[in-house]
């Protein structure tokens, strides 16, 4: 059984780290930023094939709250990345990283929100699918969202620039 308090999140993250080290998952690699801190992870995401991000290697950090898995981690790209659902500072904005509304007690759109069964793997896989399938309707980067709709060529130019940068920084 899970131990109480702060330990539960750490135990769970330790387990997930061991799982990922034992059998790697296609499309990304993951590890700790500092071996002594289970709550901060670094992932390297391979730009999904057949997308504008193909060929890129994007670094991101996952910051887990002490309340994990009751509360979701925050994910922030360290590499420059141009995407409608990523803020200027790199923070990823996807619905599964949002807590169910406290005041609504979880009924509305709970299916799209954080659940404690999500793992590092499921979060990163969601982000990879976000790269393949941007959602300009809920934009964190409004300029990028507009480009997706109105000027795809411009969007492509911005994304490819990030891809080249990510290759140079490897």
């Amino acid at each position, binding site marked *: *059984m899970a131990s*109480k308090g702060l330990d539960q999140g750490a135990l769970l993250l330790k387990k997930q780290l061991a799982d990922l080290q034992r059998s790697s998952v296609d499309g990304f690699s993951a590890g700790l930023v500092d071996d002594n801190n289970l709550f901060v992870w670094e992932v390297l995401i391979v730009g999904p094939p057949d997308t504008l991000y193909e060929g890129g290697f994007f670094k991101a950090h996952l910051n887990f709250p002490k309340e994990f898995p009751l509360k979701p981690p925050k994910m922030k790209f360290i590499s420059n990345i141009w995407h409608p659902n990523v*803020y200027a500072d790199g923070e990823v*904005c996807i619905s599964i990283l949002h807590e169910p509304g*406290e005041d609504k007690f*979880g009924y509305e759109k709970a299916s799209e929100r954080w659940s*404690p069964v999500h793992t590092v793997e499921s979060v990163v896989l969601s982000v990879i699918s976000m790269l393949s399938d941007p959602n300009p309707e809920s934009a964190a980067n409004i300029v990028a969202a507009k480009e997706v709709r109105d000027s795809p060529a411009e969007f492509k130019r911005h994304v490819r620039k990030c891809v080249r940068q990510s290759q140079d920084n490897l």
Partner: protein
Amino acid sequence: MGDIFSCCYATPENTPTRQLLGPGEQPPPYHDTFLTPAMMRHLTLSEEAQLRLAQRLALIQALPAGVYDGANTDYKRMECVICMTEFILGEPIRILPCMHFYHIPCIDPWLRRSFVCPSCLAPVDTALLSAISFQDNQVEDRNVEDISIHSRNDSLLLNTTPEVSALPF
């Protein structure tokens, strides 16, 4: 540069609309206090939220609970998907209406935040629960558990006991 990136929550649908006063309308009396209408609304909500939390806690306690007895699991080890730890014989578990079950210390804190099953996201149905008179005697609780158990048929892995709700969580 910062202002062109708005939070994805700040869509028009999510932006709270403010009530504007029409011509000749008087502002509500609470304008006389130091509290703005927005603050008043917040206070009201938080009282309501407290009440709902109290109701929620009672509902959680009314959900069927039991102990993991590992019956029929010789060939299949089961783990609690919240803590990713295998169930051990005798551990207290909570069974949701969808029949997914978890360690009580793992699921109860989540249910206080969100009343959905973490695995299948089915709402933990309050309509069903309000039909249970959980202030009533335990016989009624046991009836509800019996129904749940029958629906599991021979894949039954659970040995429910009504007194488990007295365990700490």
